[in-house]
């Protein structure tokens, strides 16, 4: 699906903010796409990792609404393969954090099935809470 990138007065500030949160990862990316070909969960994403990078570079805040930023589980496969040294997992983390800091959680803890929670190891719950809730 073609999507028109809409830039506005906040675009530059948005790019700058993500760049700061990620220790200057954003402008390094040259859009080679190796992250998208390496990502083990790309098929579960609505946009591929390289497009996440491009939208942030352009300052399109639509990226904050994508499923892709939540599907990334910080496996660092793209990180070890990026020829420019971009740690893309820092970028998806920053985008999740921007959402979570508005006090909106991605995971609704109250509606988790209690029997299911009983079966889950603490390590799964702690890591999910850390990534999905603010």
């Amino acid at each position, binding site marked *: 699906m073609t999507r028109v990138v809409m830039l506005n007065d906040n675009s530059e500030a948005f790019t700058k903010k993500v760049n*700061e*949160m*990620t*220790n200057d990862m954003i402008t390094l990316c040259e859009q080679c796409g190796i992250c998208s070909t390496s990502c*083990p*969960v790309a098929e*579960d994403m609505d946009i591929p990792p390289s497009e996440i990078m491009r939208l942030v570079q352009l300052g399109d805040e639509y990226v904050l609404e994508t499923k892709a930023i939540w*599907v990334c*589980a*910080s*496996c*660092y*496969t793209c*990180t*070890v393969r990026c020829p420019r040294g971009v*740690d893309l*997992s*820092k970028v998806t*983390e*920053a985008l999740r*954090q921007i959402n979570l800091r508005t006090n909106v959680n991605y*995971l609704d803890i109250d509606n*988790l099935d209690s029997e299911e929670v009983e*079966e*889950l*190891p*603490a*390590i*799964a*719950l*702690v*890591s*999910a809470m*850390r*990534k*999905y809730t603010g």
Partner: protein
Amino acid sequence: MMKKFPYYPGCTLKQYPKKFGIPSEESARALGLEMVEIPRWNCCGAVASLTADDMMHQVAPIRNLIRVQEMNDEGLVDNEYRLVVFCSMCFNTLKRANMMVKENEAALNTINEFMDREQDYKANVEVVHFLEILRDMGFYRLEDMIKKPLKGLKIAPYYGCNLLRPKEVGIDNPEAPTIMENFVEALGAEVIDNPLKSLCCGSYHTVGGHKDIVAERTYAIVNAARKAGADMMITACPLCAFNLDDRQALTKELHPEFQHMPVLYFTQILAFALGLEDKAGLEENYVDARPILREKGLMD
């Protein structure tokens, strides 16, 4: 004479001691390595905090490293600043926080000032995974201490993410690791190379609405091990262990033709090979490994 190490168990080794904690601690003991648990340790946070402006989530891992300093001050260990971790996720989180404060003096000062009731962290601890201790000891020496060589057993190591990546944190080459292969060889088993040995299992997506991500990854990873000829898989990450073992139930629901495969924690098979069969927790796994061990004539 036992060599004493400061030891960080983390939640899973304590929550499921029979499957994780006891095999790990007892295997180490059998090798002359005493794991001295950090007094008053706290949760590391399970996942590394990745944004530059988030110091709060670095506090928990660093507090554990301060405890290692205290253990040395109090003589619980003798000038030993290597902190041994078995859980890959704890290892990655603790090591990454440690690297961050070693590289960023301002961040270290901020965290030290925040924890004003603790002694300052002097950035002198080294976070190591137990597999690194075994490698540094020499796998040939481990081989000499094996009581029950796993002759004829075909084991596919599974690394997952946190042992290998990012490369500054990983314990081996992130694209072509060999440390677990060497470990399996030392146990006397046959190494099976799984091409998906470092593919992410889906991690914490096992909680909530995206469990199918994990079940599909498990399907791919276990099938790849089977196709390569493996009898079982081993992993060093407790969350991978849950996803690849317990989540096989969901995988089977989604793919009825799926065949189960045992997935053991690496210290379970280590304890077994060290002759500590009653400490290996083999009755704890979702997919039982005992039938294949019996089939290979390795247990009664």
